[in-house]
């Protein structure tokens, strides 16, 4: 069977689809168009900048008077029909000066930022790319400039070059070049780590080509953002300089010096301060907004959902359901759990459908499936910690508490003494700026009401039990001083510190080396017996299931497709997916020809097939499979379960 033909069902995001209508690639111009359509704010800002530039260019045509035309008879007049914004101490028309001021502002700020782009960016990229001594020396040198604020650095340059429009632009340009150099270098350092740069080198491309053709397009976005923000700073700096009487010659119409004049007539003629101040503010705001909205657009705006600190509201609105009658052994019951996330386009997509499951004391249940099948979401639902962007229905009964709808404080009380969780990345699960001990004693303080000393003593005991040498000293260490394996042991110790009835372990060994994995699995097995708890072991590795679990739940595309005793399921799977997964898992055996594969890939949640979700990849698919969703009957979700005989050869 050819593998690729079926793999054509590509995994592209909905946004990506929108972009790629037909078979045409999105060319840059098209991309900008879509950007404008999707980012009206950014587009508006760009339009605003265009307007500002236009005013600057057309100032001579727009201004009613020569900005330097003295008219002593009409000095310090308020706004009137003749002089729209009034006049200054020399009787010059303030409106005309304001328009010409825009010209000065645009000219000087574009000049200085242009200079920064021309000098700072190439130098920064080069230094970042070369690294080593080049980098260290350049950074030291630019550090001097960093220890002196931009404005004061500009003072020094003006002291040397003298005053004037060009001098001011150059002064600010030098300061900005240094800033841009550092930014470009930072971007390059980050980009250099990406493998495509290595791939380009291995591909034999020359250094300039790699720098300008490969890397520059990738850092151009962030650089443009910085340039927009610098334009704002430039206007601020330049007006400050001329306010101080340092920047431009007195005759140059400029917002900063207009404010300086206004300062002198603060008492007599306070209105004078308003127009130039507002003009500066508007221009800076414009550039800042442009920068920010471009940044958001580039990053693919992350809509931060309103973070609910209290989930009580949801709980109050949910209809009261009654806990099912559980036998003494049952620790947790999942009933008809459904979870949807808000997709980027704002539509909900269901990632978990109709999950039902019981967990019993003393058993270890493997939850297995490929990435994206919904394992982690199931685990988080069990501890009542679905993200705020998720909506859910169904129940997760822990005793008679529904963890899905219980008030936050209520659910928090259960986590620790009744249910606990460990994660894939143990070091990331610990706050980097608190000692491990500080965090480990927390559950015992909150749930068992122990004092600090007693809790610490018990934590040390627990750590010794999970095999951490020197526990008494190690609790004063910070997470980054732990190895992955040791940290995971510590996390397990903490999870068990309040003797929970159930432990959810989400890929607890996936980030660990095999030898360490074997130890941690052994530890988990020992502890589950010792504490007589239910363990849900989430993993993508059937080998781990085989080594460590009593029962197994196989998930595919948000559904449970098969449940059963490990010995039964692994010996004689009943679902074609389980069977295919088993066959595809590399065995530590001598190679025997081609490896069995599953054609295609797991579909994304917005692309789940209507009927059996595995149908497009299933070797046993029949017409009947694709008509309607398939129910989980007797532990297997397959219309052909009865007729198929899926033997796994030894």
């Amino acid at each position: 069977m050819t593998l690729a033909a079926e793999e054509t069902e590509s995994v592209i995001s909905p946004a990506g689809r929108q972009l790629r209508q037909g078979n045409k690639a999105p060319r840059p111009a098209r991309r900008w168009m879509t950007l404008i359509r999707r980012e009206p704010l950014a587009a508006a800002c760009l339009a605003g900048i265009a307007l500002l530039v236009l005013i600057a260019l057309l100032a001579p045509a727009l201004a009613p008077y020569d900005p330097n035309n003295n008219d002593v008879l009409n000095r310090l007049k308020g706004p009137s029909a003749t002089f729209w914004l009034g006049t200054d101490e020399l009787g010059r028309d303030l409106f005309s000066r304001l328009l010409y001021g825009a010209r000065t502002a645009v000219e000087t700020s574009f000049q200085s930022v242009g200079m920064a782009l021309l000098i700072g960016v190439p130098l920064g990229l080069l230094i970042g790319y070369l690294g080593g001594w080049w980098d260290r020396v350049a950074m030291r040198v630019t550090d001097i400039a960093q220890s002196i604020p931009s404005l004061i650095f500009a003072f020094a340059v003006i002291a040397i070059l003298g005053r004037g429009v060009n001098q001011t632009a150059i002064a600010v340009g030098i300061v900005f070049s240094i800033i841009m150099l550092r930014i470009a270098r930072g971007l390059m350092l980050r980009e250099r780590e990406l493998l495509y740069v290595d791939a380009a080198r291995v591909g034999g491309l020359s250094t300039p080509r790699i720098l300008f053709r490969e890397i520059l397009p990738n850092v151009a976005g962030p650089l443009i953002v910085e340039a927009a923000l610098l334009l704002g700073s430039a206007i601020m700096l330049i007006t400050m300089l001329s306010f101080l009487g340092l920047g431009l010659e007195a005759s140059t119409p400029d917002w900063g010096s207009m404010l300086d004049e206004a300062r002198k007539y603060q008492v007599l003629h306070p209105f004078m301060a308003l127009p130039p101040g507002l003009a500066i503010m508007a221009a800076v705001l414009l550039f800042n907004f442009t920068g920010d909205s471009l940044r958001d657009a580039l990053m693919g705006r992350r809509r931060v959902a309103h973070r609910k600190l209290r989930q009580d509201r949801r709980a109050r609105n949910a209809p009261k359901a009654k806990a099912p009658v559980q036998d003494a052994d049952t620790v947790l019951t999942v009933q008809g759990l459904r979870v949807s996330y808000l997709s980027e386009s704002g539509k909900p997509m269901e990632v978990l459908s109709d999950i039902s499951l019981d967990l019993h004391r003393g058993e270890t249940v493997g939850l297995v499936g490929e990435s994206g099948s919904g394992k982690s979401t199931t685990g988080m639902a069990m501890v009542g910690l679905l993200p705020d962007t998720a909506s859910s229905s169904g129940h997760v009964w822990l005793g008679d508490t529904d963890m899905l709808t219980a008030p936050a404080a209520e659910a928090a009380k259960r986590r620790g003494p009744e249910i606990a969780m460990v994660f894939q990345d143990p070091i990331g699960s610990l706050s980097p700026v608190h000692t491990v001990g500080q965090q480990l004693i927390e559950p015992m303080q909150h749930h068992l009401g122990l004092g600090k000393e007693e809790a610490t003593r018990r934590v040390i005991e627990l750590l010794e039990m999970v095999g951490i040498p020197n526990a008494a000293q190690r609790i004063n260490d910070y997470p980054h001083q732990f190895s992955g394996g040791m940290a995971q042991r510590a996390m397990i110790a903490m999870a068990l510190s309040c003797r929970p009835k159930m432990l959810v372990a989400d890929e607890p060994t996936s980030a660990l080396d095999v030898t360490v994995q074997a130890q941690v699995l052994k530890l988990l097995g020992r502890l589950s017996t010792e504490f007589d708890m239910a363990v849900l072991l989430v993993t993508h590795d059937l080998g781990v299931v085989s080594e460590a679990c009593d029962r197994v739940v196989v998930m595919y595309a948000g559904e449970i497709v098969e449940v059963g005793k490990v010995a039964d399921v692994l010996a004689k799977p009943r679902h074609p997916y389980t069977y295919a997964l088993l066959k595809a898992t590399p065995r530590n055996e001598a190679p025997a020809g081609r490896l069995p594969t599953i054609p295609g890939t797991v579909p994304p949640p917005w692309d789940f097939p209507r009927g059996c979700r595995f149908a497009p990849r299933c070797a046993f698919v029949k017409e009947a499979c694709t008509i309607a969703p398939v129910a989980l009957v007797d532990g297997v979700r397959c219309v052909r379960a009865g007729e198929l005989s899926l033997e796994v050869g030894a």
Partner: protein
Amino acid sequence: MPRLIALRIAMSLLSLFLAASFAFSLVHLSPTDPAILALGDGASEAQRLKLTQELGLDRPILVQLATWFMRVLGGDLGQSIFAHKPVTSMIGDAIPVTLSLLIAASVIAVILGITIGIYAGLRSGSWVDRLVTSGVSASLAIPSFWLALLLAYFFAVKLRILPVAGYTTYAESPSRWVIGLLLPSFALSVHGAAVIARHMRGAVIDVLDSAFINAARARGTPMRVVISRYVFKNALVSVMPIIGIEVAVLLAISTVIEKVFVLPGLGTLMVNAVITSDFPLLQGTILVTATILITVNLMIDIVMGLLDSRIRPQ
């Protein structure tokens, strides 16, 4: 920790050395003859030659740098050309003004910024957050000197409850010292508060998203503790460097604030030095500015070391 402090002090001394070299080089970067710069425009050729000899301007540049350093280390920053006074004493008079202003404004900025940032970050997406975010954007775009003018007009000219301008030393009258600083330091603090609030908000949102917050909640730690213990400290650690940068920015902005409120501080000296091409004074003020900022950053580095073990050398 002692190693970190020693290391940081060494780094600071290096920065200080580099900044001082920069200040020294100013005179030589200028196209005008340093002797003329030192004497002012009206000097005669004979005076020029004499001074060139005296200052050793005809000697190799490194020798000049060394002599200049010896002088500076001995506390001699030269004579101001314009004021005909020792630069050291002029700076000595100006430093209390600028430092009081800078410290007051920084404290206000840090307290306001952190409080507002946390408040908005914890409620990201809500209307409060949107209000704060817009307020911050606006504050970042307001030119501080314009804000200062408006404040001065409103409180001093209109309401007449605060002095318009001028500086009273603490020794003269502590209460008037405080009252005189109220408006300037508030006007100065707005930019800092906005920047710090913005970063603090972002940091809080990022920290709330991180795995260890999830893990802390998974072990049943009440949200209130999660926030006060983990969110606060982690967000603070990532905002500390911003505070350092912002103090430098405030020091720069203080020059315009000093001008609006007619405060005889470092900024005023510096501006006068540039206008009158008073290079000894300019060198002195830049050196002092750099020293202040390097010290601030040293303190921040040390606080960072206390907060975050990852940056302590092993």
